């Protein structure tokens, strides 16, 4: 009797569990299955397809995106677009769990540095064939930055971020220093930056009695990979990964020289070190607040600088000792979910084509001033180059494409960057030697790469 009643109790538990679980999976199949059903019956001549579009955004860009979606639906009456958006951080946190639950959007906007994370894990569709068929690659910036080592394309750029040198004209004028120009080397930059670095007593870095631990104005603000060490390493002839993106090349003489330049600048107080950055509300706030004369910055940084009413301009980034130059690029891109039906993937591709090829769309998005337009004809037109407001030299962004490159992005990009930052930070703060930091970073990053690629 006792055993029997225990069995019945367990049966009830199991029943409840099954009920609850089927409840979950029911809603799942209803959503995915239901939407495909929705796609089919309404058709008159052509089938109606619904695609879900995911993107990260803030207030203004959200409105613009909705307007463009409406335009797209008018142009493509058989495609219905639903959308979901969230601020950057939340968007990606949600996206990963959505992919896990097979509930991800059919097409989404991926940060340029994350494309490979999704591509190499099989979450997004290989677009090589469609791109070769429908897009003339010479017409667009940034397509090649989403190409992997095997020559496959995984994404189509939505807007480009490319790094240039920003400088605050007022601070240069006050210190009677000539504005930066395209012939500058990193050493020229540091010489000028020393004159522009002021301590709390108003002395510059070349004067005796200058206090490097109490600085009120930095020569150059320097932050993490994109707007910090990556372009310095590259223009010194160094780098992080080789072309296969599976091998670390960190422990090199070129990188050592680049690090010497950076560490020397930080020691003298000319460049912001990681601890200096922490005294600002955000590492991005140093330049707009007027606390630094120069910054390495991507295009999106014009927004904050203009908002702060800064009198500034931009030029291409300095050269390395051998005349090499490097501009970091992040091409934020549209990717298609690898799990969607062919029908939906094709509809999603229509959206991507609409975005990249239509001049009107490109112009409207360029008006927001968040990114360099993807289509070269639009980027080289007055819409972009002669847009109102600073910087005057917008051509510098386009000129930089000549020596531009992605940030050695691969599936474990976030992980190796964190590891690199960890070791670099020790060198920057003088807690370990440059040699030890590079050696340590090399070893740890190779371990990360091996773990992922040698499955």
């Amino acid at each position: 009797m006792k055993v029997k009643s225990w069995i019945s109790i367990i049966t009830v538990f199991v029943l409840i569990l099954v009920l609850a679980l089927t409840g979950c999976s029911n809603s799942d199949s209803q959503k995915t299955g239901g939407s495909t059903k929705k796609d089919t019956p309404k058709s008159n001549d052509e089938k109606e397809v619904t695609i879900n579009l995911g993107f990260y955004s803030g207030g203004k860009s959200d409105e613009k995106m909705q307007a463009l979606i409406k335009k797209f639906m008018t142009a493509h009456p058989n495609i219905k677009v639903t959308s979901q958006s969230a601020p950057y951080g939340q968007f990606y946190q949600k996206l990963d769990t959505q992919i896990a639950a097979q509930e991800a959007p059919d097409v989404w906007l991926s940060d340029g540095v994350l494309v490979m994370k999704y591509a190499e894990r099989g979450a997004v569709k290989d677009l090589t064939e469609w791109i070769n068929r429908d897009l003339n690659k010479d017409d667009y910036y940034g397509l090649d930055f989403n190409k992997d080592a095997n020559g496959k394309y995984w994404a189509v750029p939505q807007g480009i971020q490319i790094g240039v040198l920003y400088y605050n004209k007022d601070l240069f004028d006050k210190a009677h220093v000539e504005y930066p120009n395209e012939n500058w080397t990193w050493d020229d930059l540091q010489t000028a930056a020393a004159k522009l670095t002021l301590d709390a007593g108003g002395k510059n870095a070349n004067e005796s009695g200058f206090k490097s631990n109490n600085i009120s104005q930095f020569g150059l603000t320097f932050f993490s990979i994109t707007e910090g060490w990556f372009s310095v390493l590259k223009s010194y002839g160094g780098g992080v990964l080789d072309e296969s993106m599976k091998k670390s090349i960190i422990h090199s003489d070129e990188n050592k020289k680049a690090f010497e330049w950076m560490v020397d600048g930080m020691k003298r107080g000319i460049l912001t070190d990681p601890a200096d950055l922490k005294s600002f509300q955000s590492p991005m706030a140093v330049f707009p607040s007027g606390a630094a004369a120069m910054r390495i910055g991507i295009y999106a940084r014009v927004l904050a600088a203009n908002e702060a009413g800064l009198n500034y301009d931009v030029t291409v980034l300095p050269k390395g000792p051998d005349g090499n130059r490097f501009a970091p690029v992040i091409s934020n891109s549209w990717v298609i979910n690898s799990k969607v039906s062919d029908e939906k993937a094709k509809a999603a591709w229509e959206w991507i084509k609409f975005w990249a090829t239509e001049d009107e769309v490109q112009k409207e998005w360029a008006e927001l001033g968040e990114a360099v337009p993807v289509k070269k004809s639009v980027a080289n037109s007055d819409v972009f180059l002669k847009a109102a407001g600073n910087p005057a030299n917008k051509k510098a962004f386009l000129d930089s494409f000549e020596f531009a490159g992605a940030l050695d992005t691969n599936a474990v990009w976030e992980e190796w960057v964190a590891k690199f930052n960890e070791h670099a930070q020790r060198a920057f703060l003088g807690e370990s030697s440059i040699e030890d930091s590079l050696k340590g970073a090399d070893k740890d990053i190779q371990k990360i790469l091996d773990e992922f690629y040698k499955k």
Partner: protein
Amino acid sequence: MSNTVVNNMAAETIPTTKKRKYFSHEGRWGLILVSPYLIHLIVFVVGPLIASLYFSLSKYDMLNPPKWVGLENYQKLFHEPLFYKSLWNTIYFAILFVPAQTFLALLLAVALNQKLKALKLFRMAHFIPVISSWTVIMYVADAIFNPRFGLANTFLLKLGLDPQRWFNDEHLVIPLLVLVAVWKGIGYIMIIYLAGLQSVPNELYEAAEMDGAGTIRKFTSITLPLISPTTFLVIVLSSITTFQAFEQIYVMTGGAADISAAGGPNNSSLVLMLYLYREGFSFMHMGYASAIAWILFIILFTLTIIQLKIQKKWVHYD
């Protein structure tokens, strides 16, 4: 009426304890009535628990189905220096935080248990940080400890001393985080202590006074033993919260701007939960992160068992 109910219950409890009839009319209703809770428990607690145990034994990047790897994640964990570093940081945080908060909250509760003017105002003032979000607390702490603009460095410079990096100093970051955590949490613990203190009968103090006991004697011989169950509760609660500390360190070390900065500088404030989050949600090592979670669970479980065992020696229940 009430008598009949009692009689009925008495009559029925005898057979049911002998023969557990779960499917009697009442048993069925019992199960149906607790089923919302049971379903919640199974779907949201037991389910994820089993899932996370399974994940901890597999390679799982969230984007692809988990692959069984046995104990590999645990082996990796025990060979990873960063795991030991984060474990030590967590313990160090707890060693500073739990005694400091418990002791100071008790002092504060005793002080605010007196007959003071504007007593409610004082109690409320100490409770404000409890209900403030960590972001607000971060700005307050920044006003004091910002290396460039903060009060602390301005003060040091006035005295002719070298300015400090505070939260950006490897050796200062945990003590400072503890300081802020105590300041934020003390109001809550104080309330728990106030409740404990008010349950101590006044007669005991009066009797002790008649016997000539002074203030300190009364505190050590009456107050402390009688509120020992409260102290026990406080210690258990705050050690669990320290092991689960995440939000504070994430916010105060700049994790929102750059996840690789969270737990800095140089991972010197990287605690277990932060390490778990970074591995799981930033680096897509959900299997490894689940293994960290299970180790964390084992640590907390053992700690609570030890505390339960030790309490017999010093906690006095009525």
